[in-house]
């Protein structure tokens, strides 16, 4: 088996098949990064997986999963202030959490340099929106590089890190989902580990680090001057390239993964337009763009998501008095969804109807039932939702939060019917409870999210005397994003750490009414919910059960060949086919056969038994023959 850690540490140049996230880690090593922080979120957690593959003793940088993205950004900033090249990475919406500190970074002189790696998610593959974080680069005057492939994720990280160190600033590397996860053979350069100088070099007198009132202006001026200089920085500009030598009257300006889709679409096209492919999309390389505009009659600005480049490019052309026809977004659909090859082809075809002479292949209408994501077999969240639903009336209001338990909002549970962001639930529920004496308000939160962004809403509910019930779905891990530890697990990325108790945190915030129940104990949970929701004030019910996917994986690994899986089976003699297990409890292990006969899918069942209490006829029994 190839050892990823050893491969990544290779001193010589080599090539390997890797995903973009892994390529970034090799780039961190080659660039001399000293400090890396993150909060998990798709599509970036695989960066941490690659870091983990490198044994801590040979890792030239320190890594931590911080409590949230803002904290992660601040830790990276602090270590960069001391002169250490630092990286922070997180998913698209993480930048909203980090924003309050993030937008200040360009005002600062950061001796070590800092790279902010963003995992944007066009197509909302695993996110609650598809926000375009290029807006943040503009808003905060920060340079932004946008690779198209795993190989470019590697090379542009190095360009970003180089720029960040040379100019003592923060630079964004904006990845997108199918750059992070794109897999290809990437050629890496040599890696010469540099000796580490830990001297803390922060010098408050080397510049102003406390922007306040009028002292903001020199800092803002410096940020804008720096940005203007970068627009003509040769190394930054080297990430842009021109394809086709002006032979065409048509051109396309494109960046990121949309470039590859463009190349695919052009395989079917008649005469090819020239292409200006941007690596650095902010600041806009005005000189290169103007030259490209001036040498073409028509230019399509092909950008995934929002028109961020388009208005600037049009303004450039206007100011220069160019008559080039600039084709931007033509409808709302061009702002939505991932720019996959078929979409790009349609967009090109709409701009230039003569470009393709045959229709593109498309999908046949779907006939098979789709398969929405669902809670895993044995998930404590399922048991909790099943029980909590019984304790509430259909009219009560339930508020979701972000995590695996968001899936409770889908059928058959319908628990958690409104969602904004991580940690929103308590405060949104507080508002829903105002002027509301008739419908009970119950909200949910996961344990990782509680520490991430949940505490202020809870403090507010206590402080401002809101009337609602919060259910903490404590499964001992950050499950949705791949089982990272969090402050409540007693472990950090780097080993054992003090375990912050959820209950103690709540008590510390002044929550007086707390109940704790194992989520598998449905009768007790129903009773706890009935009691809590009928009492005044702010109540918390902790519904606790370990994440069974993680638990079962670990048990299987520990047991090795001695592993014996457990199963349940349905006793056909006592089964009355009332479908409680399938229709209300909704564990995917139950399958319905001919005539409504229920069976258990042995591939799925983990033998947790949380279903047995749900069967009114007691037909779900332990399958003693079960082993595999």
């Amino acid at each position, binding site marked *: *088996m*190839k050892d990823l850690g050893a491969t990544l540490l290779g001193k010589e140049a080599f090539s390997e*098949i890797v995903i973009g996230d892994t390529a970034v880690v090799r780039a961190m090593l080659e660039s001399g990064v000293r400090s890396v922080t993150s909060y998990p979120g*798709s599509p970036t957690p695989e960066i941490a997986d690659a870091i983990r593959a490198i044994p801590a003793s040979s890792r030239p940088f320190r890594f931590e999963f911080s409590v949230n993205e803002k904290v992660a950004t601040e830790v990276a900033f602090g270590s960069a202030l001391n002169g250490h090249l630092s990286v922070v990475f997180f998913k698209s919406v993480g930048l909203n959490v980090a924003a309050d500190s993030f937008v200040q970074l360009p005002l600062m002189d950061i001796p070590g340099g800092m790279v902010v790696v963003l995992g944007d998610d066009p197509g909302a*593959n*695993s996110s609650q929106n598809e926000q375009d974080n290029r807006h943040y680069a503009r808003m905060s005057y920060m340079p932004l590089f946008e690779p198209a*492939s795993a190989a470019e994720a590697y090379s542009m990280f190095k360009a970003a890190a180089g720029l960040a160190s040379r100019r003592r600033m923060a630079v964004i590397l904006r990845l997108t989902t*199918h750059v992070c*996860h*794109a*897999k*290809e*053979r990437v050629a890496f350069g040599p890696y010469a580990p540099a000796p580490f100088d830990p001297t803390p070099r922060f010098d408050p007198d080397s510049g102003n680090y406390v922007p306040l009132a009028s002292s903001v202006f020199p800092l803002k001026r410096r940020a804008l001057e720096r940005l203007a200089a970068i627009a003509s920085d040769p190394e930054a500009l080297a990430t842009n390239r021109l394809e086709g030598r002006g032979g065409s009257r048509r051109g396309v300006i494109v960046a990121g*993964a949309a470039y*590859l*889709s463009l*190349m*695919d679409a052009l*395989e079917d096209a008649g005469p090819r337009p020239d292409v200006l492919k941007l690596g650095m999309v902010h600041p806009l390389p005005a000189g290169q763009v103007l030259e490209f505009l001036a040498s073409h009659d028509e230019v399509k600005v092909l950008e995934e998501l929002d028109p961020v480049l388009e208005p600037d490019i049009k303004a450039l052309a206007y100011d220069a008095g160019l008559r080039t026809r600039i084709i931007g977004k033509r409808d709302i659909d061009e702002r939505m969804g991932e720019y*996959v*090859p*078929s979409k790009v082809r349609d967009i090109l075809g709409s701009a230039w109807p003569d470009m393709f002479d045959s229709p*593109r*292949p*498309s*999908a*046949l*209408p*779907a*006939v*098979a*039932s*789709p*398969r*929405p*994501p*669902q*809670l*895993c077999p044995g998930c404590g969240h399922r048991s909790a939702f099943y029980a909590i639903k019984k304790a509430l009336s259909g009219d009560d209001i339930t508020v979701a939060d972000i995590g*695996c338990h968001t*899936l409770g909002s889908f*059928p*058959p549970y319908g628990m958690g019917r409104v969602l904004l962001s991580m940690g929103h639930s308590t405060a949104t529920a507080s508002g829903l409870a105002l002027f509301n004496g008739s419908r009970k308000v119950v909200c949910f939160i996961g344990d990782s999210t509680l520490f991430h962004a949940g505490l202020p809403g809870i403090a507010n509910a206590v402080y401002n005397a809101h009337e609602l019930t919060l259910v903490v779905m404590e499964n001992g891990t950050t499950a*949705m994003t*791949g089982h990272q530890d969090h402050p409540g697990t007693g472990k950090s990325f780097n080993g054992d750490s003090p375990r912050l108790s959820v209950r103690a945190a709540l008590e510390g915030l002044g929550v007086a009414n707390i109940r704790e129940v194992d989520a598998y104990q449905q009768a007790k949970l129903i009773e706890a919910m009935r009691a809590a929701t009928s009492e005044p004030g702010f109540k918390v019910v902790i519904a606790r059960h370990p994440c069974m*996917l993680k638990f079962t994986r670990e048990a299987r690994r520990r047991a090795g*060949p001695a592993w014996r899986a457990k199963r349940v089976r349905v006793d056909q003699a006592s089964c009355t086919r009332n479908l409680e297990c*399938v*229709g209300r409890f*909704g564990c*995917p292990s*139950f*399958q*319905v056969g001919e005539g409504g006969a229920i069976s258990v*899918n*042995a*591939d*799925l069942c983990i033998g947790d038994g949380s279903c047995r209490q749900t069967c009114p006829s007691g037909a779900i029994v332990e399958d003693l023959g079960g082993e*595999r």
Partner: protein
Amino acid sequence: MSGGFDIYVAGVGGQGIGLLSEALIRAVDYAGYVVKGCDTHGLAQRGGSVSSHIRIGAEAHSPLVSEGRADLVVALERHEAVSAGRAYLREGGTLLWLDSTWQPLAVRLGGARSAEVADVEEAASLRGGRAARVAPVAAVDPRSHNVVVLAEICALGLVPGLRLEHARSALADLLGGAALASSLALLADR
């Protein structure tokens, strides 16, 4: 390989699509072709649909296979075979599918029809292609059927230039110890 060759792999979270596609990519690389790919996991672990895209040849740019353009669709489950075949198979392509069934919720709740063998065959024939069924092997752990399917792909010669020895080298990159031994044994059985 001239003209390129696209493979779309579909299944359900937990079936080991990740290993299957990574092994395929590495095997194709061992066979000497330029290859790229991408897993689309989304919320995969949660029993949702999962897919992988594999693109062979220098004229493949995006890591994503386009609808109606896969030369080979590989599906590890019946409903997924129908959906993936109808969405991705190209004219005259091959749909290789493992005949396992993980009922989607709407099927279990009685709101939707269960996919049948005929639905899979229709998905292929509507594209003028063929469906090749792989029967589950009772003696093999369900989570190892990804390797059974890998063996089938090589044995049937479904990817031009790809042979069992390439799959063996690929698996040796990815697995070790008992897992490698049992996977190699599954390849040898074929």
